């Protein structure tokens, strides 16, 4: 068996690969569902119903899509420049921390000013947190995969300290959570009687903005150049380190926004379960999207539907909802293998 590079990749292939990967993930999960003693067909029906089948289900799925768009963009822009930011989880929480710090009464502004300010604060917190590992990478050649990963644990312990210690809300009846943000900071609901909030518009806007930046601006061109061919980029006079740092600020910043949006849109107060691993699922979202900012919108919706659907399916059939995480992981591996098929053809001799 050997691999031969393809001369060009067809459009159909580019779209078929992520769709095929998603299908493969669902199929391999049916094996586990069979093992658990349920019918895979029924499980799939329940999964679709539970994620898209009613106004409530759809609103829950869209609510879950919002943070995934942000963290998906964070991974997509960083991976484009081959900056392996695996720390979106930590940046998410620091964004939420910054918004809690300023949003619980420290600043008195009307919503149209306060909300953007809190997003900016969250973005700065997330961006600066990624700046550390990035400078270590550019200056001292310290691998950023390990440092960003390890820093996630540091942030979680920091938040743990905050919500059990200095920021603990005395009115929360002993629950470890920070004080709620002021009403003016809350993102308005989009649909009455659901949790779907205005963060969706911000997330979609961010995706479009990232797409424009990546495709039509010098910044985007430089990011892609650094990721595709460092030697070539150096030769073209692109300041590699500066581009990588800029990418880090963008990536960490948008991951910080994810935390702000969850805080202001869903919970209203900082807790330790604000994110069930949105930072890590963002990596899957970005890979399924082929690192394309607009593709992130669709793949975030898919991963969100998967987890919301699996939640309700697992309740109905008494199957552990870790099945959603398994499907997510398999779709990541499948899309990775599939992407190779778009670039190479396999020849058997």
């Amino acid at each position, binding site marked *: *068996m*050997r*691999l031969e590079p393809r001369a060009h990749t067809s459009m159909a292939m580019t779209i078929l690969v992520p769709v095929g990967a998603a299908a493969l993930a669902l199929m391999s999960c049916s094996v*586990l569902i069979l*093992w*658990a003693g349920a019918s895979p067909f029924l499980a799939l029906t329940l999964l679709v119903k539970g994620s898209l089948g009613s106004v409530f289900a759809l609103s829950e799925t869209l609510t879950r899509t919002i943070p995934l768009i942000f963290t998906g963009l964070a991974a997509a822009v960083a991976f484009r420049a081959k900056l*392996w930011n*695996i720390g979106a989880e930590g940046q998410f929480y620091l964004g939420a921390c910054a918004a809690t710090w300023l949003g619980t009464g420290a600043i008195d502004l009307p919503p149209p000013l306060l909300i953007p300010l809190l997003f900016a604060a969250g973005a700065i917190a997330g961006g600066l947190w990624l700046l550390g590992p990035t400078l*270590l990478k550019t200056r*001292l*050649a*310290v*691998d950023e*995969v*390990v*440092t960003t*990963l*390890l*820093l996630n*644990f*540091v942030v979680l*312990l*920091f938040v*743990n*300290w905050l919500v*059990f*210690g200095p920021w603990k809300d005395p009115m929360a009846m002993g629950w470890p959570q920070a004080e709620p943000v002021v009403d003016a900071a809350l993102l308005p609901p989009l649909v009455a009687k659901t949790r779907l909030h205005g963060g969706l518009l911000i997330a979609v806007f961010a995706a479009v903005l990232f797409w424009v930046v990546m495709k039509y601006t010098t910044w985007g061109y430089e990011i892609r150049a650094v990721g595709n061919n460092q030697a070539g980029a150096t030769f073209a006079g692109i300041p590699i380190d500066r581009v990588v740092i800029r990418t880090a600020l963008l990536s960490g910043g948008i991951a910080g926004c994810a935390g702000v949006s969850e805080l202001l849109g869903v919970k209203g107060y900082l807790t330790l379960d604000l994110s069930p691993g949105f930072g*890590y699922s963002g*990596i*899957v979202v970005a*890979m399924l999207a082929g690192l394309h900012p607009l593709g992130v919108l669709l793949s975030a919706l898919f991963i969100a539907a998967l987890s919301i659907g699996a939640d309700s399916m697992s309740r109905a059939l*008494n*199957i*552990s909802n*870790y*099945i959603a*995480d*398994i499907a*997510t*992981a*398999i779709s*990541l*591996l499948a899309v*990775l*293998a599939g*992407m*190779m098929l778009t670039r190479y053809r396999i020849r058997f001799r």
Partner: protein
Amino acid sequence: MDLLLILFETGFWAATVRMATPLLFGTLGELICERAGVLNLGIEGIMAAGCMAGWTWVYFGGDLWTGVLFAAFVGACFGLLHAIFTVHLGLSQHVTGLGITMLGAALSSFVFRMLLPNITTPPKIIPFAPVKIPVLSDIPVVGEILFRQSPMTMLALVAVVAVAYVLKKTPAGLALCMTGENPSAVESQGLSVFAIRTTAVVIGSAFMAVGGAFLTLSAFDAFYIGMVNGRGWICIALVVFASWNPGKALVGTLIFAAFDALQMRVQQQTAVALPYQFYLMMPYIFSIVALIVMSRRSAYPKALLVPFRKGER
């Protein structure tokens, strides 16, 4: 003052060796993979899988040593999957590894929940008891620190010597290290880079899983979801700290575990100096500092992260 006294307690050093054990297995496993040129970020998930597999085996009536073997087998299977992706298909080692980690962690939680539904407190097994090695365990100080440990800890210490010997003194080990430096040269010797790398990743992953199994079969007696808790990532940092050298890996894990054991003692002894969360942060911060200190001096295997394709340059 108290701090210095702790360092003279044999109990402290015995705890250090015990806490170093899972990291030692993990670090050796990662080291074997990386020496062959493959970064295995699946380690965190593979350790979780080993943790769960070993425990489940024993819980359902298997004995402890076959539990360790079963964990190693499960780890090897994940390693094979990793190798198919990164070695044979030449896909991104970063993304594959993260995928394997997600899969390993999710699968072990899922299987645990499905096998033991409706439990509130995790059930327990009877883990490895410390064994006294005759004669050696009677040596003062050293005997207590090294020769009254869990048999898995002793296995880890033997593994360091074995891995060091194989990598440095045997043709197979030299070929493995060469594969991480200059795969084309290996191929021109008539050896298969694919076969060597696959073997390395499979064996390395088995080591990682055994490290995970130590947690449930020796350190504790129950399985908790999220039990590995970043130990795998710390191993990756330790490999860099050890400059890809098994002997230094032993030193590195011992230093690391000593700091970890020390922070626990300090946390217990001093009266509210720092919130406990800050003590818990220390292992992660130590790893990052270790990476920074060593990164300049470390000589990466030259072909690390570079997929090998026959006839392509």
